[in-house]
């Protein structure tokens, strides 16, 4: 790994009261909020967020998300995210994001597949060349980062990630 290559890190948020469930633990959906906000920061850095949609009428839609819930979070925990741009083609982007607590415990991982949609026509469309080149540069930069073993695995009883964790 080159020393100047690191996952994308921008997101930082403190666990909020409205994120908790009846057990005073963070609700499943709140992990989803944190992960999608973290990914949104990556899209924003690539000029592919809300401004891009307003300007072009195109946007990235989530078609799949696969979240592994690894540890509980409580009020006051501070969460940070690290994202790897796993792969991309002109219409799709695949991200992998890890969410960590301030004690460095990884609390969740998420794999996401996004589709580039022309929202005015309601169908998938390729990204323009300039922005796609930017996406490809990030894919190439992240290519040397280690991939976790569970990346690209489905859910199943035989899958070791669901054992006595």
């Amino acid at each position, binding site marked *: 790994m080159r020393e100047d290559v690191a996952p994308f890190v921008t997101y930082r948020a403190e666990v909020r*009261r*409205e*994120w*908790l*469930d*009846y*057990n005073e633990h963070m*609700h*499943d*959906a*709140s*992990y*989803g*909020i944190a992960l*999608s906000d973290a990914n949104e920061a990556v899209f924003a850095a690539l000029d592919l967020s*809300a401004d891009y949609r307003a300007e072009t009428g195109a946007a990235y*839609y*989530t*078609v*799949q*998300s*696969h*979240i*592994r*819930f690894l540890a509980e979070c409580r009020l006051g925990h501070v969460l940070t995210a690290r994202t790897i741009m796993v*792969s*991309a*083609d002109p*219409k*799709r982007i*695949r991200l992998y994001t890890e969410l960590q607590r301030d004690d460095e415990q990884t609390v969740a991982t998420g*794999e996401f*597949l996004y*589709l580039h949609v022309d*929202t005015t026509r309601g169908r*998938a469309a390729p990204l323009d060349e300039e922005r796609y080149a930017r996406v490809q540069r990030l894919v190439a930069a992240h290519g040397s980062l280690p991939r976790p073993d569970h990346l*690209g*695995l*489905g*859910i*199943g*009883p035989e*899958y070791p*990630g*669901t054992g*006595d*964790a």
Partner: protein
Amino acid sequence: MTDRAVTPPASPSSESPDDGTPADAPLRLHQSLVLPQWVDYNGHMTESCYLLVFGDNADAFFRFLGVDDAYRDAGHSLYTVETHLHHRREVGEGEPLALSLQLLDHDHKRLHIFHEMRHGRTGDLVATAEQMLVHVDMLRGRSTELPTHLVERLDLIRASHVRLPRPDVVGRPMAIRHTHDTA
């Protein structure tokens, strides 16, 4: 989102009968309208709210099983360890959602379940969720065996659900497939 991320049960707790009556296949235990606080500036339900609605459907299933407040107060619960969502179409504020749930598999401490979220009027598939759940001793913070009465209820449900077709997305890994790029 400003509301507490938990929606109350839409209907009173309904436990499964223990008289051997076959369970509905799939189970249909939860419906909801898309609430105003669930939609983004485009008027579409946000990604995390799919998790919220599938979570409410799982909660309805837990109550059906007998995993309710009293069960949790006694120190055990079912925790989600993995969720895999497939988004099929958008939904907007006020649209009705109808959820179904299929028990794919279970063992002495794990449940593998599959949810479908359909549009309540058109029946269009909105999203699916595949989940792995683990029975947890909350005090000790670790997985533990399900009590016999819950395993027996799960056996009954599975006996009925085993004849449902296995959804084709179950267990499928996520990938960008480059060979048939005609979307």
